[in-house]
């Protein structure tokens, strides 16, 4: 599971091309435009849910490409996932109370 020393050196020797960063930037800007456009169309809570899912997609792109989660170890990816899961868990617990009171 852990990377050997040579792998670390190899990665540093010839890092990939910068293309994936440019591609990620374009994707993020398009999604932002999409969210902005959608908010005129959707109504009520549905609009908020749509906007938040698109935001989640954007954050995953930032995480995988810019923060290089794709290339990091399993442990680092688990930390990212666990942190997000517990934020959602807190919101659900609170919603379960306020929503059904």
């Amino acid at each position, binding site marked *: 599971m852990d990377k050997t020393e040579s792998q670390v050196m190899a990665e540093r020797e010839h890092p990939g091309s910068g293309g994936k960063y440019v591609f990620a930037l374009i994707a993020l800007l398009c999604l932002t435009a999409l969210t902005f456009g959608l908010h005129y169309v959707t109504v009520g809570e549905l609009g908020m849910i749509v906007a938040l899912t698109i935001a989640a997609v954007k954050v995953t792109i930032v995480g995988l490409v810019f923060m290089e989660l794709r290339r990091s170890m399993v442990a680092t990816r688990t930390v990212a996932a666990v942190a997000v899961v517990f934020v959602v868990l807190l919101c659900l617990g*609170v919603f379960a109370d306020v929503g059904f009171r």
Partner: protein
Amino acid sequence: MTSYLTETTGIKSWLLTKDHKRIGLLFMIATALALMLGGVFALLIRFELVSPGPDFLDGLTYNRMFTHHGVVMVFLFMVPVIPTVFGNFFLPMMLGAPDVAFPRLNLASFYVYCAGAAIVLAALWFGGIDTGWTFYTPYSATSPTSVAIAAFGVFVVGVSSILTGLNFIVTVHTLRAKNLRWLEMPLFVWAIYATAIIQVIATPVLGMSLLLVALDHAWGLGIFDPSMGGDPVLFQHLFWFYSHPAVYIMILPAMGVVSEVVCTFSHNRPSSYRAIAFSSLGIAFIGFLTWGHHMFVAGMSVVDVGVFGILSMMVAIFSAIKVFTWTLTLKHGRIRFTTPMLYFFGFMFLFVFGGMTGVAVATSSLDVHWTDTYFVVAHFHFIMVGGTLTMYLAAIHYWFPKMFGRMYPERWGLIGAAGVILGFIFTFTPQFLLGNAGMPRRYWTYPPDYQWLNVASTAGATILALGLLVTLGYLIWALFKGPKAERNPWGSRGYEWLAPTPPPVHNFEAPLEITRGPYDYHLPET
């Protein structure tokens, strides 16, 4: 190899040390002082409650006493103690590593703890706090006492807890010895690892909720303020989202010590290594789903009461798995009856009884009668004092030879342990009955018919205090006058005992080569 105690001398070498063992000792001193301060507040409470009417404290002062007892004990002693003292000292040694992953961060964590503790003690000195350690709004926002400073102080202590947790998780992941696999690490390492996960995930939410209370109290920026349409129950959600996992931060390291003590003194491998290791992680993650059982009567929706009720039942299973596995570890062993073993037996009875009353309190209809009464006070003291304090004392005795190179007096140890355990039972069993009779908690005066139970509880408290004083006495004596200890007095197979006593600065002469498991008692000691 010179001992880490004498490698470099002088105050600067101690205060600016980056050696995980010295930082462990610094934390030991700080947390021991916090324990004594909290104990003083506890005794003041017990003596005030001897008679129904006001004795020597008035209402506001009594409320300050139990709040200070709660804040000092929970945030300055129970949450940090075992991870920062024994986790710091023995985690690297049990992994065969020379030090923790980030030594400077380790020292920073100590000084952040001291800063936070100083702020909290300043708040207690100038005006004190009387909201209870739970800081429930809106009273915490309107209380005339210095709540804002105390809340900020606890936030700073929380930051130190996050730094320690972060350091330990990285250490376990990256500093294991050459061929030390995950399923061959000592069980104490698993317990500290699970605790560190909870510390890193839960503490920030406490920090935020206390900051919101501090802002509300100081400048009226209340987000929970009912006069602004806010909902005080939401503060309870955020507070208990931290505070229930926090009770697992307190008990999990104690369970790690139990696993080590049981295996060493019964000279036997754990009856199921995986059960104990994975139930530590189970407690860590499922512990986050059960915070609502503190709020059954707080005005939560009935749906939430049901959901949190069933989830609270699940988490009890992991503790039950651990208890059965420890009991079966005694089977086929060669049990030596030393002070840590007496503490283990005390732990077994008190923790099991305390844990079962916990499941009883999680039953929603019974909780309506019990919550906020002395039944709940007795329950969490059975777990905290009966579980964590006994194992803190057992850990001091178990690792005393390795930490200080000297042996404690066995006879005195047994007397101290007996005093602590009996004193504890005498103090808190009457409180179960007080809770059943309906005496609410945090009461300064109470109806006269509860008096005799309170008097019994105070008597028990004095025995407990005496037991702790005796323990402190002979431990300090043993520190200087105790007989020299050899490398492995208990014949334990733990990796920390492979290092010389007391260990050098980087723990082992040569990087540790793992050739056997940590519990191979069926093989002769190499």
